[in-house]
C-alpha cells in the first residue's frame, strides 16, 4: 500500500518512501561506499570512472557530478546517504541543507539563528510560504 498522498503535498519536500528507495538504490549504495577512505580517494581522483562502476542511471550520475542535491533527492537519493558525498567534499550538514534552499550559506545560517524557517505558509503546496517555489526539475515521477 502506498503512503497517503498527503506526503506528496508538502512543499519543498521529498518523502523517502519504499518507491523512492527502489529508484535510488544504487545511487544511495554508491554514497555508502564513500564511508571508506580508499573509495573516497578513488572517487576524488576520477569521479566519472568511479560512478561508472555503479548501476546508476545517467541522470543520477550527472546529478552527482553537478552536486545537485535536490535533483539527487528527486532521483531517489536520501539525505543521510547523500551526506556522504558532502562529507567527502568537506561540507557540513548545514552547508548541504542550505545548498538545497537557493539561499547563500550566510543567509541560511542567519535564518537558523533567528529561529529557522517558519511553518506558516509551508504546510501544504499552494500556500504562500517561502518554501513553495517549485523544484528545479519535478522528476519525482508521480
Amino acid at each position, binding site marked *: 500500500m502506498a503512503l497517503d498522498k498527503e506526503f506528496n503535498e508538502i512543499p519543498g519536500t521529498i518523502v523517502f518512501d519504499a518507491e523512492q*528507495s527502489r529508484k535510488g538504490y544504487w545511487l544511495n549504495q554508491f554514497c555508502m561506499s564513500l564511508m571508506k577512505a580508499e573509495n573516497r580517494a578513488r572517487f576524488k581522483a576520477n569521479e566519472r570512472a568511479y560512478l561508472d562502476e555503479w548501476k546508476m542511471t545517467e541522470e543520477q550520475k550527472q546529478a552527482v557530478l553537478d552536486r545537485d542535491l535536490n535533483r539527487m533527492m528527486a532521483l531517489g537519493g536520501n539525505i543521510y546517504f547523500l*551526506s556522504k558525498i558532502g562529507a567527502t567534499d568537506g561540507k557540513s550538514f548545514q552547508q548541504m541543507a542550505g545548498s538545497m534552499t537557493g539561499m547563500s550559506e550566510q543567509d541560511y545560517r542567519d535564518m537558523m539563528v533567528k529561529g529557522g524557517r517558519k511553518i506558516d505558509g509551508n504546510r501544504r503546496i499552494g500556500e504562500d510560504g517561502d518554501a513553495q517555489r517549485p523544484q528545479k526539475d519535478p522528476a519525482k515521477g508521480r
Partner: protein
Amino acid sequence: MARITASVYTSHIPAVGAAFDLGKTKEDYWKPVFAGYDFDKQWVKTHKPDVIFLVYNDHATAFSLQMIPTFAIMTGPEFNPADEGYGARPVPKVIGDPELASYIASAVIQQDFDLTMVNEIDVDHGLTVPLSCVFGEVKEWPAKIIPFAVNVVQHPVPSGARCLALGRAIGKAIMSYPEDINVHIWGTGGMSHQLQGPRAGLINREWDNAFLDRLIDDPKGLSQMPNIDYVREAGSEGIELVMWLIARGAMADVVAGGPKPKVAHRFYHVPASNTAVGHLILENAA
C-alpha cells in the same frame, strides 16, 4: 527485580557531537545548547543507571539500503563509535548487556513485536551524542547500554501508536527481569528539523513545545497523531520524534496504570545547526 526509574529524551544532533569533540562548548553559539544539559551531570550521579536502554536511529551508517530493519535490538557485548565520514567520534566504546538484551528481545517478540537482533554494529551519532550530552566527557560510559534502532529513514516508518505499545512491551519485559538493577530508557532524535529541499531549515517551536506537553501529560493521545503530522509540522526529519514514544511507553503510568512521572528537567532551544534542541527527564515515582 529490575526497575525503570527514569526516561530521558533528547535530540541527537551530529553538530552537537562535533562541537563537543572540538571543545567548542563554551562558544557563544553552542553555550546555550550545552547549558541545557548542565542539570544532567549531577542528576545522573544521584540517579545512576546500571543499564540504559537507548532508542535511536541509524543514519545510513550501519544500515545501508541492503537491509532496513524496522526495530533492531543490539544484543552484542560491545559497540564501537562509527566513522560517519568525518572519522569516528573520540568517545568511549559502548558496553552492552547481552543477557538483559536477549531477555528483552525474547520477551518483546513474545508480545508480538518482531524485533531484529543485531550482535555486531558500529553506533553512530544518534546513540553517542545523547551520551555525551548527559554524561559529558568521560573515560568510559558509566552504565551498560542496550542500543535499540528504529527505522525512521525510509517511509513508512512505525506509527506513534506502535512505538508507544512497543515501549510498553519493553517496559513489561524489563520489569520482569529477575535482577535488582536500575534501568533508564532514553528516546532520542528530533525536535523539528528538515535537512532537505527548499523547505530545509524548518523549525516549529510551538508544535515542539506542544509535543513536549503532550508527551508528559497525554502520551496515549499523542500516540494517535498520524506520521504525516510529524513530517508536515516538524519537518521531514522531525519524524524521529516518534521514537520518544517508545521511551514514554515504558514509564509506569503507561505500563501498569501507575502514577504520572515527575518532570525533573525540561529544556528547549533553537537552533543547533539545522535543528531545534529538546530535552526532557521524567522520573517514575519511587
